[in-house]
């Protein structure tokens, strides 16, 4: 009896809590829009278009058929880049995390590489990957791979050793240990890394499109900058940001779920 009472009030509570959370997020968004509007009123159309104008332009873009191939192009490059960044990041990260010496040797090198302005690598990327989607994918992947590697490395390094000992006592094979213990145990950190890696990968793909392309969100931004078409420039940026926030929120949700288990 008392139990059901508690369960009931708990559910109520969670609902109120969720409402409040969405209210808070809405407030943050309102704050961003207000700041934006004020900046617009100060700086004028030449520097920044108003939130309303930007939203209208974004609506126009979303409604026009010629816009979607750009989205598809960037999305495709992003997906490939993410997959590559994830595979390499998790693979290398696992190795560096499991092998202490390699990890200790590699970590500062990784961080130094991470802080190299990757834009300067464009000529090399061009050499290796040529033009077209491969170059964008490569550019996105090199932006995202290091954070994912570092997160994975730390996750594996800090894995609770007792899990591995349990695996041995239960006589698991190496393969079973990797898939049944290592992977699920490091999942929460890998998702955290993915959240950061995702944003940077997207940025990388977009920057890759600035150099040379004929399609994609980066191409649109570059064209809008070239034409000094402020509202389109802002609208594409807005669409990118909204998409990124949405995906990041989904990952955040997954992240919270995974962390709560631990």
């Amino acid at each position: 009896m008392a139990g059901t009472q508690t369960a009931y009030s708990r559910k109520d509570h969670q609902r109120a809590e969720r409402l409040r959370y969405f209210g808070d997020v809405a407030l943050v968004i309102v704050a961003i829009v207000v700041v934006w509007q004020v900046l617009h009123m100060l700086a004028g159309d030449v520097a920044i278009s108003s939130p309303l104008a930007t939203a209208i332009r974004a609506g126009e873009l979303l409604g026009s058929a010629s816009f979607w191939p750009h989205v598809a192009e960037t999305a495709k490059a992003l997906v490939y880049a993410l997959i590559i960044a994830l595979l390499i990041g998790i693979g290398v990260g696992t190795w560096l995390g499991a092998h202490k010496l390699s990890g200790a040797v590699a970590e500062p090198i990784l961080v130094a590489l991470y802080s190299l302005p990757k834009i300067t690598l464009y000529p090399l990327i061009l050499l290796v990957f040529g033009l077209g989607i491969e170059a964008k994918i490569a550019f996105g992947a090199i932006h995202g791979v290091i954070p994912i590697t570092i997160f994975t490395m730390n996750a594996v390094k800090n894995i609770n050793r007792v899990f591995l000992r349990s695996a041995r006592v239960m006589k698991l094979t190496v393969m079973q240990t990797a898939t049944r213990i290592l992977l699920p145990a490091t999942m929460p950190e890998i998702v955290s890394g993915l959240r950061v890696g995702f944003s940077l990968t997207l940025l990388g793909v977009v920057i890759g499109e600035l150099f040379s392309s004929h399609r994609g969100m980066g191409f649109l931004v570059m064209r809008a900058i070239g034409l000094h078409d402020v509202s389109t420039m802002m609208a594409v940026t807005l669409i990118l940001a909204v998409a990124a926030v949405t995906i990041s929120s989904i990952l955040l949700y997954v992240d919270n779920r995974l962390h709560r288990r631990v």
Partner: protein
Amino acid sequence: QNDITVTHWGVLMYGAPYAIARDQGYFEEAGFELGDILTSSGGGTTVRNVLTGGLLYGETSLAAAVSAHLTGRDIVIVNTGAATVADILWITTPDNDEIDSIEDFVGKRIAYTRPQSVTDMTLRMSLDAAGLSADDMELIAAGGIGDGLTLLQQGAVDAVPILEPIWASQRDNYKAVLYLQDVLPRVAQTVGITTSAFAEERGDDLRAIIEARRKGVQFIKDNPEEAARIFAEVYDRDEAIMRTAIDAMLEIDYWSEGGFIYEDMDRKMDGLRLIDVVEGDVDWSAVVDESFLPEDLRSE
């Protein structure tokens, strides 16, 4: 590999002949199966995209082509694109009655985009031509065209460069104070390039591209109205603005049909030396290959 690149494709006027030619099927007519037209931001990138990106053909600034040639890159110039830099002009705010011409630049803050860019070069050439010295005014590197406009609005500079088709959309908001054709003789702007390997193996395709582009130029001259419609559609821009821009370009005979005018190219070299982009001279015969031009456009 049938992709080509045009510098600032989708943004500036260089692309118009290609847009028309593709729309009208001139490439197929000439026997070339055109792939994609890629944009490349800036001359250096365009050249690299051709040299290392494996593109068959690219239209890029003469300056970039010459730099590449002078540093030993394997590059061949095959035709002329934009025959003049006169699409660039300087503007100020309409309420500024202190500046009406280049003579009024003295003592003012005048913007160009980036050091050693085409706006830097043409500004200095214009000052030279007008008998003025850069020391008499403050020259400011603004970054891009948009940044310049922001600075102008903000009152941080007094005149900024602009070019078509942006100018076409901004005519009512600003006042033009310096048209280059008023002070400068013609200066070559862009050329078509390829690699010597392609020049050897794909001569027919290069000829076809040049031929198709030429027909595009002729189409614009003959049907500016229709050309504006097609161009606006390809660039996803307003048709009326494109019409204005195309008319302005036709007025200065902007698009070359492909032939070389070495005098204008030498003048470009003078300008590049003025801003320290190149040293020394170019032997045009070492880098230009006229054999892909239609007979009637070749020199001699």
